[in-house]
């Protein structure tokens, strides 16, 4: 499980995320909703250790990670699928997945290919030559290979065609059931968030301003925050 307490992140002098706190339980899927520029990606980068934080604590399974380097956080059970996917374009699909392996063994977990059969088909292609949706699957597969307990996905639906977005929601729920993962996904697309998440957090100007469980009435309440 993931606990974030009093997280503040700044770019130079300007603070972007202010005193953010939330907790996500084991096996829970939470969506972090908000418009562009509200601090979703900044929050995720700070959780991963890519951005330094001003104050606050990040705990995974009770272990404090706020002072650790990104690779140490991965070893403690955090995994990250960044915005824009950031697969390694010159590595083959198989090699991309293998970068997530932490043990000296070279075995990719079997369920990765069961979840994403297209990656097995294309395992010798270069990552950069895949379509956007395939790259998204690859980025998730790479993250799953690190055997995480918490999976962070930053805007996974960005630039992906609607039919694949539905598949993505199904696959994420399947992963949760298969591995008992905690999943945090940042999102602007409300229909996707409602389809995948148990609980929705709304972030505005670097603060969490509302919290809704996904049931009837949630859509209207959250969409207020997302309309421009």
């Amino acid at each position: 499980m993931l606990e974030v307490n009093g997280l503040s992140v700044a770019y130079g002098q300007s603070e972007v995320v202010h005193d953010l706190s939330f907790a996500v339980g084991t096996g829970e899927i939470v969506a972090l909703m908000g418009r562009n520029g509200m601090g979703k990606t900044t929050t995720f980068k700070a959780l991963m250790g890519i951005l330094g934080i001003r104050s606050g604590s990040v705990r995974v399974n009770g272990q404090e990670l706020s002072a650790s380097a990104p690779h140490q956080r991965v070893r403690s059970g955090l995994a990250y699928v960044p915005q824009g996917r950031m697969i390694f374009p010159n590595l083959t699909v198989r090699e991309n997945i293998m970068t997530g392996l932490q043990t000296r063994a070279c075995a990719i977990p079997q369920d990765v290919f069961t979840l994403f059969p297209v990656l097995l088909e294309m395992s010798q292609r270069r990552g950069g030559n895949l379509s956007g949706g395939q790259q998204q699957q690859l980025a998730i597969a790479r993250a799953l290979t690190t055997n995480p307990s918490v999976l962070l996905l930053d805007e996974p639906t960005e630039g992906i065609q609607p039919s694949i977005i539905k598949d993505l929601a199904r696959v994420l729920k399947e992963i949760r059931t298969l591995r008992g993962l905690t999943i945090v996904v940042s999102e602007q697309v409300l229909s996707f968030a409602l389809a995948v998440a148990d609980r929705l957090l709304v972030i505005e100007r670097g603060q969490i301003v509302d919290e809704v469980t996904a049931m009837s009435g949630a859509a209207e309440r959250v969409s207020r925050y997302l309309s421009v």
Partner: protein
Amino acid sequence: MEGLTLEEFGAILVMQGFNGLSYFCVLLLMALGLAIIFGQMGVINMAHGEFLTIGAYATFLLSWLSEHYAPWFMPYYFLLAVLLGFAAAFAVGHLTELALIRHLYRRPLDSLLATWGLALIMQQGFRSLFGAREVSATLPDWLLGSWQPVSGIDIPLNGLFVMALTMLLTAGVLILTYRSRWGLQMRATTQNRVMAGAVGIDTQQVDRFTFALGCGIAGVAGAAFTTIGSTGPTSGSLYIVDTFLVVVFGGAQSMLGTVASAFSIAQASSILEFFMTGSMAKVSVLLTIIVILMMRPEGLFRANVRR
């Protein structure tokens, strides 16, 4: 070229071609290290030549020691010298990364100046330690002499040895880069350092090992270099321009391109040198490379991938 029969002309071409091969070997060993450091990591290492010098002096030192204290060891010392050259350059490279290079990954121009300064410091260091005069290692007997496949053609044995060493090392580096866990981590790190960290790769450790390995290979080049030339404080720096030329011409991302480009540059200069003056040969090779790079700015080989 008058008074040459066709047979003699052929023999000259073969021997000159072989000289080109010896040059190719040293150039390739230097370029392999630089292809890792510059091509993969993007660090402009002007001190790369000095790591060759380290390897060469290590070989000289070992030859001197075994000549004076353990003559029975003379036939074997050279094999140890290759390892020692690698180890010495690897260790110094490791320290250099720790003290200097790791602060400069996002500042390529600063890394150019800093490593150039380092090169000058190292050259003066060699001068203070070993003197300004060139030294040469005493080669074991089995490296002297030549092999005559047919009369009129003499292939020097030291050249053959260097070539075998180069092929072994090239194969080793290629296997390490494309088949090993470290190679995968190195390629991932160089493509996207931030993301590599976020999939659990300790990028600092990978960078340090990668840089040190590139330097270590230059050290082996130094050991090989002692068999074909004498060693002075600036021996390595003579090669640095040619080495960069090889890496850029071959395509900075491609190891196979490095091999192909080292071969063509070394062969072209060696064969042309026989038919014209040394500087004219250099000029024509350089001009050809410039024209080819104007048509293919990414070098001979490049990765076909969308970005």
